[in-house]
């Protein structure tokens, strides 16, 4: 569901960007090229007009490349905007002064669309587009002043064409921006809903799991109480061990606080429970910080040796997990007499390094994974 909505939002961004390019292309080929070729004799400097058309095409190509790749305008638009305004000037110089704002004067209307393409998706698009359109209007007004076309009719014509052009170009950009923003809002909302669902589901799973473990501990406690009621000696070391182990499990269950089950932690917990069922006293400090995502195979390699040490523990074991964004370390200290230990560190293909140490009747097995590319 979230993926579909994200795809829709991406399509909105991409196709509205390409829509601006299509409008500019249709305008440039359909109108600009037609008047350039059919109105050849009407131009004062027809080759300059052709040159203006070609420069416009080049800027269009640069902008199109950027829109197609990233759905946004090029990174450095200042130079391109200046070139575009130069096209405006070339177009005006190429025509007879009386043709100003006439059919042959194509540049004033087209360069606004290049402006739309250049500012597309940029953070300050409003300011930049208005600046380009205002510069275009100013160039036209200057040309009119220089050619002495500042009579009432010419001014009215100027206002109509400039306002018409600006309204279309600004309107399109504004409308598409609104559409894109709404699509992005929808994506954010969908993501939030999906995260809520995931959290609810994991909380439910944890709750169910805890109820199951509470029930298991209750059974153990019931059995112990029954033994005591039947006359078991509270001083008997076996009874005392049973009581201590039960108390430890209960305490850990009460102090457990992680809300999202981690696969590594879940796998470890399963083995801890199995050890406790064998009456091994297991100490487990809370795992605390969130564990980073592990590449394929790393979790298995991290757990293999410590779990073997835990599985073979005779009476007691201590399980610790330390995690940072770039490192995960799993260790077991246990009174395991049978575990074969390697004097040198064992390097797994996944990058996990396992070290062993025997000291004072205990074995310490520690596997560490370091993220080879912490920058990611």
């Amino acid at each position, binding site marked *: 569901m979230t993926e579909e909505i994200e795809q829709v939002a991406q399509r909105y961004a991409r196709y509205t960007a390409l829509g601006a390019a299509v409008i500019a292309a249709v305008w440039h080929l359909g109108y600009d090229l037609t008047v350039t070729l059919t109105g050849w004799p009407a131009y004062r400097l027809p080759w300059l007009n052709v040159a203006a058309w070609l420069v416009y095409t080049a800027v269009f190509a640069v902008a199109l490349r950027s829109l197609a790749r990233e759905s946004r305008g090029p990174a450095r638009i200042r130079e391109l905007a200046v070139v575009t305004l130069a096209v405006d000037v070339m177009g005006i110089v190429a025509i007879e002064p009386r043709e100003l704002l006439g059919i042959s004067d194509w540049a004033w209307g087209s360069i606004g669309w290049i402006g739309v393409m250049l500012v597309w998706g940029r953070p300050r698009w409003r300011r930049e587009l208005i600046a380009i359109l205002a510069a275009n209007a100013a160039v036209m007004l200057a040309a009119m002043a220089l050619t002495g076309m500042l009579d009432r009719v010419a001014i009215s014509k100027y206002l109509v064409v400039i306002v018409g052009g600006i309204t279309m170009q600004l309107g399109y950009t504004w409308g598409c921006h609104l559409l894109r923003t709404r699509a992005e809002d929808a994506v954010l909302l969908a993501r939030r809903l999906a995260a809520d669902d995931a959290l609810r589901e994991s909380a439910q799973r944890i709750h169910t799991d805890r109820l199951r473990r509470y029930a298991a501990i209750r059974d153990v406690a019931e059995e112990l109480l029954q033994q005591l009621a039947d006359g078991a000696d509270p001083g008997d070391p076996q009874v005392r061990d049973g009581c201590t182990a039960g108390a430890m499990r209960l305490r850990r269950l009460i*102090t457990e606080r992680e809300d999202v089950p981690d696969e590594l932690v879940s796998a470890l917990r399963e083995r801890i429970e199995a050890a406790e069922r064998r009456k091994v006293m297991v*100490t487990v400090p809370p795992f605390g910080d969130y564990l980073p995502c592990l590449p394929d195979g790393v979790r298995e390699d991290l757990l293999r040796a410590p779990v073997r040490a835990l599985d073979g523990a005779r009476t007691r074991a201590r399980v610790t997990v*330390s*995690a*940072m964004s770039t490192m995960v370390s799993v260790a077991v*200290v246990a009174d395991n007499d049978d575990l074969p230990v390697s004097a040198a560190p064992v390097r797994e293909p996944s990058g996990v390094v396992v070290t062993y140490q025997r*000291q004072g009747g205990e074995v*310490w097995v520690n596997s560490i994974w370091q993220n080879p590319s912490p920058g990611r």
Partner: protein
Amino acid sequence: MGQQHLAEPVTGPVTVALVEDHQVVVDGVRSWFGPPPSPVELVAEGPTIEAVQGVEADVLLLDLNLNGTMVVDRVAELCQGGQRVIVFSEHEEPETVRAVLDAGASAFIGKGRATRESCLETIMEVAADRPTVTPPMAQAIATDERPHRPQLSDKEREALLFWFQSMSKASVAARMGIKERTVRQYIDRARVKYAAAGRPAPTKEKLLICAIQDGLIQPDEVTIYTSLAADPGPR
């Protein structure tokens, strides 16, 4: 409570006030300390912070969960007057440990792993104003990734992690191929850096107090320090 580290260096048995709401734990701690004469004496205990307030004690041993309420946010207020506070709790999550260390606690003893020896050792070290790092503190300091975390060397971080995960400092030394004394130095140095980073030291005086608390300099060196600080030479 409320005595100052600098004014009253500990002589004789270390006096401890305990804030703990479970009688079974109070009795356990009392039995760990043993009957007088003992190097550590329990001089007051109570189920709330208020119950021991006003009692002169070298160290305050504080349970974090009192009658169902976490008192992490009261640690800073307790430490402000110079009181040495050791938190004694089963809430060993690194973020909780970091919170109390940042608030000025001298040490954190995890109830899950504490033994009589380790508990007494930590109390004695804290009373002597020497840096001490228990396994839960080692994990919290080593895995601190917050922007203002202290800059630990690779060896210091490694020693902290192994100390948290192994059976003893001797096994850490064997693992790193160094002397146990060097392991202790790495761990203590990390604690000093951490204490300096966690404690705001806006003035030279405060920094000086921190340095003395961390055992970096001795109180009798203060005159030399002051004269250096007052040196009007070129900066």
